[in-house]
C-alpha cells in the first residue's frame, strides 16, 4: 500500500514539469483558438467582447473555399509523388550492402541539416525566369520564353516534395528493413510476376511505414506556409498563407483563429484515420 502511494507521488512528480508546460503552452492555446474563433475583432487588432458567428460565416466565402480545395489538392499530389519516389529508394537502401546503405542514408539526411528557408530560397533561384532550369528547358524546346516556373501551384508541389521526401524515405526504409525478403522470392517461386510480387507482397508488408510516411507529408503539407509564400505567388496560395495574412496584413485575430480551427480539424482527420487503420494491425508504430 505504502509503496503504491509513493510510486504515485513519484510518477506525479516526474511527469509534472512536462504536463504543466505543455498544458499551458500547447493544450490551452490550441483550445483557445476554438474559443477565439467565436469572438469579434476589435478595431485595435485585438480580441473584442461578446460572441459572434461572423468569422465562421466569412469562411464560407468562395475565395476561402478555393484556397482550402487547392491546399487539399496540393497536399495530396505532394504525398503521392513522395510515396512514388520513396518506395523505390527505401527498397534500394535495404537491398544494398551495409556500407553503401549508411552512405546513402547520410547523403539523404545531410541536405536537410541546412536551414529550411535557405533550401526554399535555393529553389526560388533555380526556378527564377533567368535561372538555370529555365535556360535548360528553353534550350531543349520544352518551355517557351514566356513560361513561368515560379509563382504557381506546380512550384509549390515541387518544393514541397523536396522538403518532405526525406521524411517519407526514412519510415519506408525502416519498415522495409524489417520486411522478410524471402517472402518475395517465395512469391516468385510460386509463379508471381515481379510486379505482382511487389504489389501484393512487398507493399502490404511495409504498410505501417507507408502510413507513417503519409502522415509525415500530408499533415505538414496541409499547414504549409513558407513554401507557398516564397515560391507560390497568388495562384499558389494555401490555407497557411490565409492565416498569416489575417495575422500580419489586416490583424484580424478572431478570423485567423477561425481559419486555424478548420485547419486543426482537418489535420486531426487523417491522423485519426491512420490510427484507426493501424489499431486493427498490431501496436501502431507512431503512437
Amino acid at each position, binding site marked *: 500500500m505504502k509503496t503504491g502511494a509513493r*510510486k504515485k507521488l513519484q*510518477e*506525479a512528480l*516526474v*511527469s509534472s*514539469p*512536462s504536463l504543466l*508546460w*505543455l*498544458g499551458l*503552452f*500547447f*493544450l*490551452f*492555446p*490550441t483550445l*483557445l*483558438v476554438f474559443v*477565439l474563433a467565436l469572438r469579434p475583432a476589435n478595431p485595435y487588432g*485585438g*480580441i473584442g467582447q461578446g460572441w459572434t458567428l461572423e468569422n465562421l460565416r466569412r469562411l464560407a466565402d468562395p475565395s476561402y473555399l478555393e484556397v482550402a480545395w487547392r491546399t487539399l489538392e496540393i497536399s495530396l499530389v505532394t504525398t503521392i509523388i513522395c510515396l512514388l*519516389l520513396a518506395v523505390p*529508394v527505401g527498397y*534500394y537502401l535495404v*537491398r544494398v550492402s551495409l556500407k553503401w546503405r549508411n552512405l546513402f542514408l547520410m*547523403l*539523404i539526411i545531410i*541536405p536537410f*541539416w*541546412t*536551414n*529550411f*528557408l*535557405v*533550401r526554399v*530560397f*535555393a*529553389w526560388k*533561384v*533555380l526556378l527564377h525566369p*533567368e535561372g538555370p532550369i529555365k535556360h535548360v528547358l528553353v534550350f531543349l524546346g520544352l518551355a517557351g520564353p514566356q513560361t513561368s516556373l515560379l509563382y504557381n501551384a506546380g512550384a509549390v508541389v515541387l518544393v514541397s516534395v*523536396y522538403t518532405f*521526401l526525406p521524411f517519407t*524515405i526514412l519510415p519506408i526504409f525502416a519498415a522495409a528493413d524489417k520486411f522478410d525478403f524471402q517472402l518475395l*522470392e517465395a512469391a*516468385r517461386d510460386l509463379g508471381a510476376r*515481379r510486379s505482382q510480387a511487389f504489389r501484393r507482397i512487398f507493399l502490404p508488408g511495409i504498410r505501417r511505414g507507408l502510413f507513417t510516411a503519409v502522415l509525415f507529408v500530408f*499533415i*505538414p503539407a496541409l*499547414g504549409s506556409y*513558407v513554401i507557398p509564400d516564397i515560391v507560390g505567388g497568388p495562384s499558389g496560395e494555401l490555407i*497557411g498563407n490565409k*492565416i*498569416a495574412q489575417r*495575422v500580419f496584413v489586416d490583424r484580424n*485575430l478572431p478570423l485567423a483563429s477561425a481559419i*486555424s480551427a478548420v*485547419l486543426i480539424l482537418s*489535420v486531426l482527420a487523417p*491522423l485519426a484515420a491512420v490510427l484507426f487503420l493501424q489499431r486493427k494491425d498490431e501496436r501502431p508504430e507512431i503512437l
Partner: protein
Amino acid sequence: MKRSRLPLLVTIAVLFFFYLPIIILVVNSFNASRFGTGWQGFSMRWYARLLHEPEIWRAARNSLVIALGATALSVVFGTAAAFALHRFARSRLQRFHYGLVYMPLVVPEILMGISLLMAFAAAGVRLGLGTIFLAHVTFCVSFVAMTVLARLQDFDFAVIEAAQDLGAGWGTTLRKVLLPLIAPGILAGALLAFTLSIDDFVITFFVAGPGSTTLPIRIYSMIKYGSPPLINALSTILLTVTFTAVAISQRISRSKG
C-alpha cells in the same frame, strides 16, 4: 534472381534532386554577378559585404542565446517526461501524457505558432525574445522526450534496484548509474533541440515582436526584400558550420564506439 535497376536509378535521381539547389547556391555565393544569372568570375565580395551587416550578427546572437536556453530547459523537462513515460508506461496519466507530448510533433508548425500567439495576445503578454523562448521550449520538450524515450526502451530498470541493494543512495544511483547510461540519449535530444530551435522560422515568426529578430527571421526578410547574393554567402557559411558540427559529432561518436 535478376533485380530491377529501377530502384537504383530512382535513388540516384533523388540524390541529384536533393543536392542540385544546394550546389548551385554555394557556387553562386562566389559569383561576382549581382543577379546570379551567369558566371561573371570568382569573387569573395558577398562575404566581405556580410561583415558590414550588423543586423545579421545581432540576429545570429539572439538565435544562439534562445537556442542554448531552450535546449537547457527542454532537456530537463523532456528527460523527466521520457523517464515518466517509460517507468509508468501503463498508467492512465501516462497515456494522456504521451498524447500531450506526441501531438506537438504532428501538428503543423503554423498551428502551434498561431495558437501561442493567441494565448499571448489573450494574456496580454508583450511579444519579444521572451515569447520566442517560451515557444521554442514548448516544441523542443516533445522532441527531447521522444529521443530519450527511444533510448530508454533498451534500459533495464533492474540496474537501479541493484545499485540501491548494494547500498547506493538516490544521488549516487542517479549520478553513477542512471545518467551515464542514458547520457547518449540526452545528448542526442539536446543536439536535436538546439538544431530545431536555431532553425525554426514559422513558430518564431508568429510570436516574435517588432525588433526581436532571430537569424531565420532575418533570412526571411532578406529573401523577401534583400539581395540574393548576400543570402547565398550567408547560407554557405551556415552550411559549412553545420557540416563541421556533424563531422565532429560523427568523429566523437565513432571514437566512443
